[in-house]
């Protein structure tokens, strides 16, 4: 007979399999490497398990997971220091290819440029885009996670799209002369 903790472990693993990629993408925006992002996600996972005690240890909904991950990310940022983080990002970027978004089989040049543009967005814009596009959160949920107003969340998202559009055009021009 399968015990309750064993069932919970299975449910959490299924949850991780379904949501892990979305959360990892957010974590990548807060860290300098895939390895650090996975460390951050693991830390958030442990905290979430504890938070879910009062809900019978069921896996959390995505907005809560983003909230906790964000808090872990803030702690991480404080520990690393902004300068160090920027430095590590640059080293990582030039060290070898480690994109956050997977390369699709049929990926075209525009997709590659778009991916590059997303990775270069500022943290505030990037997190809104990440939660909206790949997390599927509503502006109300994003506002709650980031503790900002609904309108601010929507404005940041729109501004991020405009920035991406502009960056995409610049990257295309730079590539094709």
């Amino acid at each position, binding site marked *: 007979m399968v015990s309750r*903790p064993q069932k919970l472990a299975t449910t959490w693993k299924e949850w*991780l399999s379904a949501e892990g990629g979305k959360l990892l993408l957010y974590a990548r925006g807060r860290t300098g490497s895939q390895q650090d992002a996975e460390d951050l996600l693991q830390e958030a996972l442990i905290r979430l398990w504890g938070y879910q005690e009062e809900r019978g240890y069921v896996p959390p909904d995505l907005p809560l997971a983003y909230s906790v991950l964000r808090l872990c990310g803030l702690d991480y940022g404080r520990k690393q220091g902004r300068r160090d983080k920027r430095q590590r990002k640059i080293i990582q970027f030039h060290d070898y290819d480690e994109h956050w*978004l997977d390369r699709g089989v049929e990926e075209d040049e525009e997709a590659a440029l778009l991916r590059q543009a997303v990775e270069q967005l500022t943290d505030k814009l990037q997190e809104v885009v990440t939660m909206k596009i790949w997390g599927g959160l509503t502006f109300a949920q994003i506002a709650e996670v980031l503790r900002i107003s609904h309108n601010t969340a929507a404005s940041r998202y729109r501004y991020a799209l405009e920035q991406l559009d502009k960056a995409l055009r610049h990257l295309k021009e730079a590539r094709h002369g």
Partner: protein
Amino acid sequence: MADSLRALEERLEQLVPKGLSDFGLERMEDEIDRLAGALAMEEGASSGPTVRKWGIGAAAALGVLAVVYWSPEGGSERGVDHLPGESDLVAAVVSIGDGGRAPQPSVSVWQDVLAAEEFLVLSSARRVQGRQDRGWTPHQDGGAPHRYWSYEVIDEEELVDTRSGYAVRVVSQHEEWVPVEMTSL
């Protein structure tokens, strides 16, 4: 929203977030097992029927599963033995019974515990230490070059033979090398 931004939004939705690495996923699943194991122990300790089901010996063992004797390599200390064929695997039998009044189990008891057809996994934990850059390898057979990272991994499992009530903690240590594909920017 302008049509160009809507089109951009659709293009973004087509990009797929990169998933967890195999190693990262395994590490997190182990963490989930550890958390669930701790919950099982917690619930077992506070649940009479469950404790009775495991037997008094196993229940007593829950309270004293704390000590592990670590012997890095080759050594054999009191209560510690190396598993055959696994130079880095260490098993230690912990005190069993009623508050220390039980007889000290022999060193070889772990063999009986591990040989038991049914044993209960009380907990399972994996600790990952020290990442080291092991350099990279160039293209091989037309494949992409890889950079290798090595991790020192320590696995710990606490097992109880439900028939005898003997508990054993198995600690294994090994190095895992994880290749990361390198592609040009």
